[in-house]
């Protein structure tokens, strides 16, 4: 039988419906509309309610979209011909209510029915992020999620440097950076996002240059300001997630209070000499916050002072990248995160320990979070 003869045969055998009837079917019959055109073809648009599953992938993957063989399926292609062949395949697989949309996407558009432009990775991005696409937990959907994510880095210092570099490489689409400082030579031992040629320049500018050298597609939003009670909420509110790599107690408490109030997860890291802490304050009803663990700041004699502020240069790499892993998992909604747990790293002795953090009933995070007032934090000047 020739192709034309087969098409005539199928037209007689497969029920066809006009594009105008599809929306009704979706609404009233719990039907599903599947666009079987190639990826290239749907770039310009596809029916708003359609799922895209290219003809070549149909038999292998249809069960992911439709697991009930009696659920009505409307199949659409460009003109209404390929959809006949696709519908036949589905019937052969055992689906009982399969329709071909007459006139295909052309008719859909001509009838003025709703369309959307699909979110898709470009060919370049597909190659660039191919090692992500190969991981089922990430995949194209996850990579698109990272691309549309907005992460605020508090500090472009020891912790902020590796976090920024790896999140940029991983394709997190928007990175905000809060840091009022300029690059000093004593930073270069650990703040690997900055180089000798950036000495004296604003850290946010230096970080932006390094991020764009790595990944020109990342949108960098620079905030060369000191976080305080007057700007904390406005700085944080447009972000999905905050990475706390700040270097003083005042910022630690401010970012905690603002994140808890706004419901923004805060991935916390802190370092000193050979030791570091990592956790996630998830800012949910069940999750503890920084104040649950430390309701009060330590007095000067119980906190390391600036004169003691040494840190092993590679330690922020270890702690910062543990934070970066948390960020990716939180953005993708995969795996287990460190909410309610503090990971303590003792690099000198190779000890990793997990400490519980309980939600404190009397903590501000346990009562009407949205009513929290962002108050100035009284911290003595020189403590880390």
């Amino acid at each position: 039988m020739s192709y034309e003869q087969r098409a005539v045969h199928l037209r007689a055998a497969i029920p066809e419906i006009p594009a105008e009837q599809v929306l009704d079917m979706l609404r009233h019959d719990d039907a599903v509309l599947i666009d079987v055109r190639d990826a290239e073809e749907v770039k310009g648009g596809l029916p708003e309610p359609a799922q895209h599953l290219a003809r070549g992938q149909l038999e292998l993957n249809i069960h992911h979209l439709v697991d009930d063989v009696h659920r009505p399926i409307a199949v659409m292609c460009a003109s209404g011909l390929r959809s006949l062949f696709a519908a036949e395949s589905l019937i052969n697989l055992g689906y009982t209510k399969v329709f071909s949309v007459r006139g295909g996407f052309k008719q859909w558009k001509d009838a003025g029915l709703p369309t959307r432009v699909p979110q898709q990775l470009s060919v370049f991005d597909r190659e660039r992020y191919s090692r992500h696409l190969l991981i089922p937990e990430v995949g194209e959907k996850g990579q698109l999620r990272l691309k549309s994510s907005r992460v605020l880095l508090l500090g472009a210092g020891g912790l902020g440097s590796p976090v920024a570099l790896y999140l940029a490489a991983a394709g997190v689409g928007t990175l905000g950076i809060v840091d009022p400082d300029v690059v000093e030579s004593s930073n270069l031992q650990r703040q690997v996002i900055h180089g000798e040629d950036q000495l004296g320049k604003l850290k946010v500018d230096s970080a932006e240059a390094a991020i764009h050298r790595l990944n020109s597609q990342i949108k960098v939003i620079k905030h060369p300001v000191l976080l305080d009670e007057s700007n904390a909420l406005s700085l944080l509110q447009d972000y999905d997630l905050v990475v706390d790599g700040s270097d003083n107690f005042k910022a630690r408490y401010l970012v905690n209070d603002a994140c808890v109030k706004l419901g923004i997860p805060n991935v916390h890291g802190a370092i000193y000499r050979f030791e570091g802490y990592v956790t996630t304050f998830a800012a949910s009803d069940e999750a503890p916050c920084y104040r649950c663990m430390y309701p009060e700041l330590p007095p000067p004699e119980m906190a390391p002072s600036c004169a003691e502020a040494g840190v092993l240069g590679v330690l922020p790499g270890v702690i910062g990248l543990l934070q970066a892993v948390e960020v990716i998992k939180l953005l993708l909604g995969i795996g287990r995160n460190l909410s309610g747990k503090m990971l303590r790293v003792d690099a000198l002795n190779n000890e990793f320990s997990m400490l519980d953090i309980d939600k404190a009933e009397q903590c501000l995070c346990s009562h009407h979070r949205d009513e929290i007032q962002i108050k100035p934090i009284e911290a003595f000047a020189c403590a880390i």
Partner: protein
Amino acid sequence: MSVVHINLPVPLRKLAKGATSIECQANTVLDALLKLDEIDASISARLLEDDRSALKRYINVYVDGKHISKTGGLQTTLANSSKLEIVTAFAGG
């Protein structure tokens, strides 16, 4: 008496001549913290409220990974070779 191992937080280490941890004999968490005064008489006062009924609010103590608030507070009994971790905040980044 149990022999227990205490990890010192950074701000206490200079009082302990740089030691990061010490071993001592103690039956409860409170015993163990008071034993630290043998190294430097000011230590327990930095960790405990004046009446020794509770930890200061910026101090956390874990015994074998569990916060003492879940195991009996300062009266938590210590087994031989228990590991106490005194945790204070630091804010470096």
